[in-house]
Structures are given as structure tokens and as C-alpha cells.
């Protein structure tokens, strides 16, 4: 199961990356970027998964700490994913803001129109 | 050759054709049409070489004649184009310049200006000295310039100079009376 998820995640990331690298429309590029980050996030979640594991919530009534360490799903990646999602969101938002400004500037969404800086 | 002359006669109203020998003809053109005629001869009829420009002072007729001698190397033919200018009493006849056709024309014209007083307005360096330096008398080749008088006034003639007719003088003084004397070893005319 986790391999399916991981594969899916990688596939998504690669699709996203492909979109990011191949599309000329800025919005499509950003969509590609979103898919890319989403894919990576999925990979992260998949990494932390333990087959048959339980939610990583520790309380005194549940299983012992020792048992828990074996059976619970690794909580760290999940925490990481949350952060990562937040950051991905921030970056995407910033990108979109940029695109908006750029569009106001040149009335174009084609990335090839923004090559004033080179060499 | 004939074509060029015909052109001159037809297009430029040239007259007084005079064929000295095959390949050398003289013809007169009006001075207003002269440059056009020369241009035509050069550009169309193949008279690409300017041999010379010279002048003749017809003081009796009141004419200053300019002669442009043009050469056609392809046909080995020459045309002398005569232009009759009205002679002025004091120098200063004027003629259009042709230095734009042949750059070397400026030197001929400079010479004519200096020696005959014929002006060619627009010709480069036309007022520069050509061979005379610091000349301020009348142009010496005009026939009303009395060169002997000028020399006597200017060059301190040595008194006592005699002039003889060379032919008579030599007959009298130098050649032997008797042609047989030529063989006479004792006679040495150089002595």
C-alpha cells in the first residue's frame, strides 16, 4: 500500500515537474509546481507510514510506550508534511502574486516574453 | 571618325570642317556649345584623350582661337575642335573649363591663362604661376605684347650689339667662297 502511495507521489512529482518545465503558460507552470509539491508531500507521508500502524497519539491508557514505538505510524513526517504544505502554499501564493504583477506589466502569460535579463 | 564629325555638325552646329589628312580633322564650334560638344565626343564618340589645348591670337581679326585636340585611341583619329572667342583689348577672354572631363586640362588652362590671359573660371589653381614667377606685365604670348621693347626696358641691354641676318652673315663670313675649300685641310672654320 505504502509503495503504491509512494509511487503515486513520485509520479505526481515528476508529472508536476514535467509540467513546470514544459508549459509556457505561467499559470500552468504554477499548477505544475503545485502538483510537484503535492507529489513530494505524498511521498513524505508514505515514508512515515508503518503497515498496520496506529495513529501516533500517546496517552497513558493506550498501549505502552515501547509497543507504541513499534506500532504507531512515524509522526515526524506527518508533522513535516504539514509544514511543507504551508510553505508550498506560501510559495505558490507568492508566485501567483508575481504572475499577476507580471501580467499587469506586459499583458502576457507566456514565459518566453520575460527574457529581459540574460547573459 | 566620320560619325563623330557628323554628330558635331548635326547636334552642335559645327562648321568649317577641314580634313588635314585621314584621321586628323579640324572643325569649328560655337563657344557656347563647345563644352557640350567635347563632352559628347569624349563620352559617346570615344575621343577619350585630351592631347592638348592651345590658343592662337588672331589679333587682326579680333579673334582668340582656342583649339582642343582630342584623340580617339580606338579609331586612331584626332579631332581639333576650334573655338573662336572674341578677342578683348586687354586680356581677359573667358571660356568654360573642361577640367571636370580631364583633370589634366587644368594645367593647359593654367598655361593659357598665364601666357594668353584667357580665363577659365572654376578651373583649379587657375591663377597660380605656371612657368613665370612674379610676372606682372601683359601675358607674353599675346601678340600686342612687345617682347623686344620689354626686354630692352628690363634687362640692361649691352650697348654696341649688332644684329646680322644669320644666313647672310654666315655666307659672308664663315662659308668658303669656293666650295672646293671644304677639302682644304688648312681651312678650319672653327679656328
Amino acid at each position, binding site marked *: 500500500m505504502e509503495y503504491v502511495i509512494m509511487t503515486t507521489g513520485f509520479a505526481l*512529482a515528476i508529472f508536476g515537474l514535467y509540467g513546470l518545465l514544459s508549459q509556457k503558460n505561467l499559470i500552468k507552470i504554477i499548477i505544475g509546481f503545485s502538483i510537484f509539491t503535492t507529489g513530494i508531500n505524498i*511521498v513524505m507521508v508514505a515514508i512515515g507510514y508503518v503497515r498496520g500502524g496506529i495513529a501516533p497519539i500517546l496517552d497513558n491508557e493506550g498501549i505502552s510506550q515501547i509497543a507504541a514505538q513499534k506500532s504507531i505510524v512515524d509522526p515526524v513526517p506527518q508533522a513535516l508534511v504539514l509544514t511543507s504544505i504551508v510553505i508550498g502554499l506560501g510559495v505558490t501564493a507568492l508566485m501567483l502574486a508575481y504572475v499577476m504583477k*507580471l501580467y499587469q506589466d506586459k499583458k502576457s502569460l507566456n514565459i518566453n516574453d520575460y527574457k529581459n535579463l540574460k547573459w | 571618325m566620320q560619325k563623330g564629325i557628323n554628330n558635331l555638325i548635326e547636334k552642335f552646329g559645327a562648321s568649317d570642317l577641314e580634313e588635314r589628312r585621314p584621321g586628323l580633322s579640324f572643325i569649328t564650334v560655337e563657344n557656347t556649345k563647345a563644352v557640350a560638344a567635347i563632352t559628347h565626343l569624349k563620352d559617346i564618340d570615344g575621343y577619350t584623350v585630351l592631347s592638348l589645348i592651345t590658343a592662337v591670337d588672331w589679333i587682326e581679326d579680333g579673334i582668340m582661337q582656342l583649339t582642343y585636340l582630342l584623340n580617339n585611341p580606338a579609331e586612331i583619329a584626332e579631332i581639333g575642335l576650334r573655338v573662336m572667342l572674341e578677342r578683348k583689348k586687354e586680356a581677359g577672354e573667358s571660356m568654360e573649363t573642361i577640367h571636370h572631363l580631364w583633370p589634366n586640362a587644368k594645367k593647359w588652362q593654367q598655361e593659357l591663362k598665364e601666357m594668353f590671359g584667357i580665363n577659365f573660371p572654376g578651373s583649379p589653381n587657375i591663377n597660380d604661376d605656371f612657368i613665370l614667377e612674379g610676372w606682372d606685365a601683359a601675358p607674353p604670348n599675346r601678340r600686342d605684347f612687345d617682347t623686344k621693347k620689354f626686354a630692352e626696358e628690363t634687362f640692361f641691354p649691352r650697348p654696341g650689339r649688332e644684329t646680322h641676318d644669320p644666313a647672310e652673315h654666315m655666307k659672308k663670313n664663315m662659308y668658303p667662297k669656293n666650295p672646293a675649300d671644304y677639302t682644304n685641310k688648312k681651312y678650319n672654320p672653327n679656328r
Partner: protein
Amino acid sequence: MVGPIYIIALALGLAFFLGFFGKSLKTFSGFVMLAGLAGMTFISGQWLMAFVDGSATTQEIFTAGFKPPFSINLRMGIEEATFTFMINVIGLLGGIYLFNRLKEVGNSAMSVFIVLIMSLNVIVMTRDIFNLFVFVEIGSIATAGMIILDKTSKSLQAGLKYLLATGVISGLLLIGIIFAYYFAGSLNIDGIIAANLMASKAGAVAVFLIIAVLVLELKPFPANGWGLDVYESSNPGFGAIVSAGTATAGLFVLYKVLPMGGDAWYQYISIIGLITFVGSNLVGTQQKIANRLLGYSSIGQIGLVMTVIGLQPILGDAFAFIAFALLLNHFLAKAGLFWISGIIKKENITDWSALRKNSALLIMFVIFIFALIGFPPFPSFFGKYELIMSLISSDNIWVAVVILIGSFAEGIYMFRWLGHVLKNENSEEEVLDIPWNKFIPIVLVTVSLLAAGFYSVPFVAGANYFYFVPLAFILFLGLIDFLPAYIKNTVSIAGMGYYSWLLYPLVEGDLMRTIFFAIFMFGGILTLVVGYNKSGKREGFYPVALMMYAGLATIVTTDNMFGFFFGWELMTAGSYFLIIRGKRSKPHAYSYMLFSVAGAYLILLGFGLAHASGQTQALIALKDISVLPTLAYTLLAVGFMTKTASLGLHIWLPGAHGEAESDVSPMVSAVLLKAGVFGLMLLFLYMGEQTGDTLLFILGWVGAFTALVGNLAASFQEDAKRMLAYSSIGQLGYILFAIAMMTQLGWLAGFTYVINHFLFKAILFMVVGGIVVKAGTHNLYQMGGLIKKMPLSFLAVLIAMITMAGLPPLSGFAGKWLFYNAVILKGWYIQGVIVFFAGTIAFLYAFKLLHSIFLGQLKDNHRNLKEISPSILIPVYILIAGIFYFSAFPQDVLEPIGNMLANYFPSTLEWAADGNAVTILSNWNGNAVMIIIISMFVLVLGYLWLITGKTQKLEQFNIVYSAERPFRPETTHVSHNMFAGLNKAIGFLVAPGITNFWNNVSKMVLDFAGVVRRLYSGNGQVYAIHIIIYIVVFYLISIG
């Protein structure tokens, strides 16, 4: 002691807090921001102080009270304290610098700015790899926010490209982190290191991703187009933060995580660093846009530091100093340059001459440039010297070579830029607006740079605080620059006199050094005396002149390689500024500098090899070089030959000497060139004849052809000073040839030439320089007949020229006589004949110079000229007295030198009591020749006077002119293309083949750079593809 965590707290709180201020309180909030930055600086500074005086130990801070892996931990050790301090300082200074701009944009910008600085702090301090990711991302977002501080179309585009690139990079980083965590079970760096991920292939991939991404954050060549765009388009004040702050943090992170990868990774990093350093600087050579140029340079410098980090295992103990010196140097200099760029506001480097309007700013600009290239006394000089020494000692010569190539490439564009700044046209209307808040940070970094140089001394073997004494004097001269020239001249002469007196004990007893010391110091003072005829302030002249002389003094007095190299570079820098003062000197000073820098690097490599062999910095290490001796000696010889302008390396000289100011030409020609000779002599003495047999043989030929081509070219010159410059090339060719013979007579001839060339070339350049100024033209054919106006100058030049041509009875003949003997005894016959041929050609230009300037026809506009100033004539006649003394009593000078040389070579010259010099081949009595010729001269002159009645004085047109009269002096003076016949016959020898060769080389390099930089297509997507390709290639090379 305030905990380091408060840095974060303070920043976060402030950033949050600033949001509450309304738009009306912008100034207030600005000061609040500065206060916050100051607080952060204070905290890190406090820690740094504590670590420096040993009162603190490394602190680990755990958030939320757990230990890793369940918590994020920060570390505050001396390294972290230093780096956070640097970052905070740059943040504070940058904040001050950007104050107005931030205020205009608003509180949000200030928040972003603070967050950026904070994130950099955390990046440095954190030991948690995911935390690292988070703050890298925060940093990226903040950076993206700051890029559009100036909302221009370009900065918007750059920001988007930046976001795309960092997005891809961070995605990859995330994958790396998560797999690292998966395999190591820890997010803590130490934990990951302990887990030794490299053992498994999958783990290695994780480490690969982490390190590769961190490398990519440092913008390695060529996957760095997005970074360059940021440098180019964003506000320069922010560029300084990126270049100095972000890069510093990034480098530290790399340093921090590198142990994850183990030894192999150090190697990869150093290779990446090298590629970046060389590639970026090479591509930069084509760049004309100032900020982008700075970007290339930043990336290059970071690449260099990256290399050093990669070399950590090799460098061992020296690593810390080298890395830190190079980083600090880049940090301070690049921040300063970006800030200056923000003041100048000129896009193209050719327009930067506006900088000249403010001399303080100009000086600081110069300091930054020289610091970047690695000139003394800046930290990079020490760092680079130590780096090269260590590298060569550890058998990494190729790394050293590549680093020097990269440095040279950086020099190519930096000095071009400097040339534009110093020499380009300057429009009068523009006024440079320098607000105080922009000026002060620049001053502070400049002062820090100088201080850092000073404090680098204890880390480098051979370095000595004494070297800073003349620098202090130069600083003092710089401070009194507002005074009129004659006062500064007097001060300089006094200073040089005192310094000579101070240094004299160091050379006393060593005749060779004493001679060169005398030439440098005495010659220096004499050439300074000439400066009295200059009016006005001569701004900037005296510091640089004294810098050159300080360098020369250091060279000749030092006994270790570091000191020698220090002096060499100091002299190069000083002479560069002297040369570029000439009106049309820009290209010539540029080529001089490039040749000098290249030569210095060759010397450095040679020294490195010597050091590697002897493990000592003392010059004696040159004696027995065991590591690649042939290469070492060749490198050193070629290095010194760039200064002596030997054939092939001479193309800079004619322009540099010819276009220099009238009193600079004698300095750089008569005096400076001897530095190269001194180096060569030193080298040959240590090398010995046996070791350098082939090299010496080749150098002999080079010397011979240099002499021939130099003299031949001189005789075809139409420019007076260029003629003298080419003559210098020729004379230096003699010297090279003479000392390459490695016999007592050869060296004696070499010394004779050294002394003579000093004497007569100083005279010639002084007098001709004075005349050129008076006559208002360099061209020989525009002068003439000046003997009537300047008889004393004529006499001086005549004597100098007779000396140069080697005619008896003057001392030039001593050289020729020794030469003949040496050539026959050595057996270098054919080379010798070439040199003698060159000698006869010297007559040609001697005559041409004398004739064209002094004889022939006086020109219309020179009819009222007067004799040149006594301040020139007095030193000139002192030198002439020297020539006469040397000529009449050659024994007094040559015998001690011969005795000294007898220590090294078999003695072949004897001196009889009556002054007769005797070799087994020949004899010569300079004294007798002098007496006989002078008495003959008097007798013959008396005879002529006796048979000559009263002479009628004539004017210049009273000549036989084929019964004509001359028209104008210009058409009557024969000077232009004087030796047309010779030119037709053998002019092909001086066809500018060598100049063309070098032109082609530089064209090839620039064209190559022009092709490579097409990579940077300007398309953000392409840059992302670069990143992917880079990762893939890197992966295939490192792991795959």
C-alpha cells in the same frame, strides 16, 4: 548573556509587531527595525566576544525541551557566533543603507527584511535538517519578497525565476531530507552523520540530494542563471545582503552538512567550487552590466570558498584561516561594491566614471577591487597565498593552477571596470548624491577590510607587521592629499629618505641587494624631485608612488618569499596607478596589470613549489627545489620576465611607459623594471647553472631576440616616449642575456647594464618627458631644433645616448666590453652577434631621438620654448655626474661587484693597479680611454678653432636646398619614417606578430565566454532545466 534563541524571538516579534504600525509611523518603525537588527547584532556579537575571550563554551539549545530527534536543536559555538554576527552586521548595515527605500515601501518590507536576516541566523545556528529546510524556504520567500523592493519589470521577472528555481530546489531538498530521515531515523545533522548514510546506496542518494541542493542554493556554475538575474535586477542594497549574507549562511550550511557525505564529497565540492570559480569569472569577462558583473564575481568568490571548504581535509590546520579570510574578504568587499553600485546608479560599467566625483568613494571602490583580486594588504591576499602554499605542499598543484586561472579571469573584468572608472569621460552636470546612511556602511566595511588584513598577519608564515609601516605612511599621505603638491613631495622624499635609512642595515653587506636598493631608493628620490615642477595638488599621486617604492623596498630587503611576494604585489598595484594616470593610458595600464597579475601568479606557483620542497618561507628555499624543479624555475623566470618585458611578454610596456606622465615614466622604466631583473638575478643565483642549463640557454636566446626586436622597434617609432619604452625592452633583453650566461663576466655586464640603464633611462625619460610636456606633443616629427632653446637638455640626452650606445669613453662601453668577453668565454657566439646587432641598431634610434627633438628644424609653435625646469635638470645632472664617475673610474664600481660575484662564479677578470681590466681575452683601461679622448678632443677643438675665422651665425633656413629655399620647418625636418630603408629590408622582424598573438588569445577567451554565457537564455524555465540537468549530471558523476 542573552540566549541566541532571542535573536529569533526578537526578529519574529519585531516582524510581527511592525505590522501593527500604521503608515504614518514609517520613520519610527524604521528605527524600530534598526534597533531590532542592532539587538540581534548585539546578541551574536556578545556571544562572539565571549567565545573569543574564552568565557563561553558551545551551547546547544533544544526547543520544547526534548532531545533530538524529537526536537529542533540550535547550536551556538564560535563558528555560529561568528557567522551570525557577520550576518547580523550585514543586516544592520544593509538596513541602514536601505533605510530610505524600506521606509518608502512600508512596514511590510521591513518585516520581510527582518525575517530574511532572522532566517539566515537560524540557517546558521540550526542543527536540524528539516528546520534548515523550513528556514531556507522562509529565506527564499523573504528573498522573493525583497527582490521586488524596486518594483521594476526586470526585478519582477527575476523574482519569478528565483521562485521557480528555488521551488524546484526545495522540492528536491525535501525528498532528500525525508529519505535521510527514513534511513537515519534522525533529522539532526549530527544524528545523520552518525548514521553514516553513505554506506547504503539509497542513503547515499538522500545525502546526495541534500548536499547537491545546498550546493545549488549557492548558485554553482552553470546552473545559476536565476541567481544572476536577482543580482542584476534587484536593489543593490539587497544584492549586498544576498551576496554577503545569504551566501555566507549558505556556505556555512554546506560546511555544516558536508560531514554527512564523508571524504568523497569534499572532493566533489572542491571540484564544483573550482568549476564555479573559473566558469563564473570566465563568463564574467564579457559582462558590461555592473550589478550582473558583481553577481558573476560573487558567485565566483563563493565558488572559491566552496573549493576551500571542499579542500578542508587537505588544508588541515590552515583551513580555518584560509576559508575565513577568503570569505570575510568577499563578504566585506562585495557588500561594499554593491552598496557603491547603489549610489552610482549606472547600469553599464563604462558609465561608472561618475564615481570619480567623490574621491573617498573612489578609493573605497579601488580597495574593494584590489581586495577581491587578492592584493596586499587585504585578507584575501594572505588567504590566497596560504592556500596556494598549502595546496602545492600537499601535491595539489593543478588545483592551485585552476584557482589562479579563475583569479586571473576575475582580474580581467575587474581591472577593465576599474579602468573605465578611472579614465572614462565624465559628464560635468551629473552630481553624485551620497546620503550619509549609504556612505557610512561602505566606510565601515572598508575599515573592517583593512583591519582584517592587518589581523591576518599572525596566520601566515613570513608575514610581518613591519610591512604595514610604509602602508601607514601611505595612508598618512592619502590623508594630507588636499595639500599642494610640493609639500607632499617634500614629505614623500623625507619619508623615503627615512625609510631607506631605516632599511639600509637590512641590505648592508650584501652588495647585490645594496645596488638594487640604491637604484630603487635613490632613483625613487631623484624621480620624486622631478615632481617639484608640477603645480596643483596631484591628487592621489604620492600615495601610489610611495606604494610602489614601498613594494620595491620590501622586495629588496626581505629574506622570505612571502615578503617578496607582498612587496611584488604592492609594487604592482602602485605602479598600476602610476601608469594609469597618463592621459591615454587606460588600455596600456590594463594590459600592464593583466601581465603583472599573471606574472605574479606564476611567481606564486614557483614559490609554492619551492616552499613545498624546502618547507620554509625563506628565500633560500629557492636553492634546491626538489618538487618539479624545472617547472618551478621556469614559472619563476617567466613570472619575473613579465616585469622585465621580455620578448613575448613585452606588449604592455611601450604603451604603459610611453603614455605615462613625464615623471612617472622614469619611475616605471628606470627603476621599476629593475625589480624584474632583481628577481631574475635572485632566481638565477639560487638556481645555479647546472640546474637551469636548458632554461638558461633558452632565456639567452629570448634575451637576444628581445634586444634585437626591442631596439629595432624603437628605431621605427615616431613617438618619443614609446621609442624610449621600446629601448627599455631592448636594454632589458641585454640584461636577460647577460645574466643568463651565468658567468662572472656575464653578470658583471648585467650589473653594468643595470646601473647604466638606470642612469641613462632615468635621464632620458626625465628630459624627454619634460620636453614632451613643454612641446605639447609626443611625436618626434613635430619637434625639432630645440637645441637652441634647451642646450642643457640636449647635453644631457647626448650623454645619455652615448652611454646607451656603448661608445667609449662613457660607461656604456664597459658593458659592451664585458659583453664581448663574456660571450666568447661562454661560447654563445651567434646569440652574441644578435645582441651586438641590436647594439648597433641602438645608434639608429639614439640618433633619431637626438636629431628629431634637438637638431633639424625648429617648429613655428616652439619658437618661444624655454629650457625645462631645474627640478628636472638637477636630478638629471646628478645622474650625469654618476655616469661620468662610472666612466672614468669603472674599477671603483666594477671591482667590488666582481669580487662579490667571485663567490658564485669562477673569477675571470683581474684589475691592474692602474685601472686596467684584464681578462684572458682582452684588456680595457677606462681611465686611460677617458684621458686620451678628452685630451684629443681638446687638441682637435683647438686646432679647428685656430684655422677657423670669425663665424657667421645662421638661422635655420639658411641651408643648401638645391638652390631653392625651404618652405616650412615641418616639410624640411626629416624625421618621420626615418629609417625607411632599414624598414623595407628587415622591418618584417617587428611586424606586430606578438601583439596579434595576444590579441587573438584574449579574443578567443572572450569569444569562448561569449558562447558559454548563451546558456543564460533569460528564460526561467530553462534555468529550472539547468538545475535538473545539473542534479542529474552531478548524480551520475558522484554516485551513478
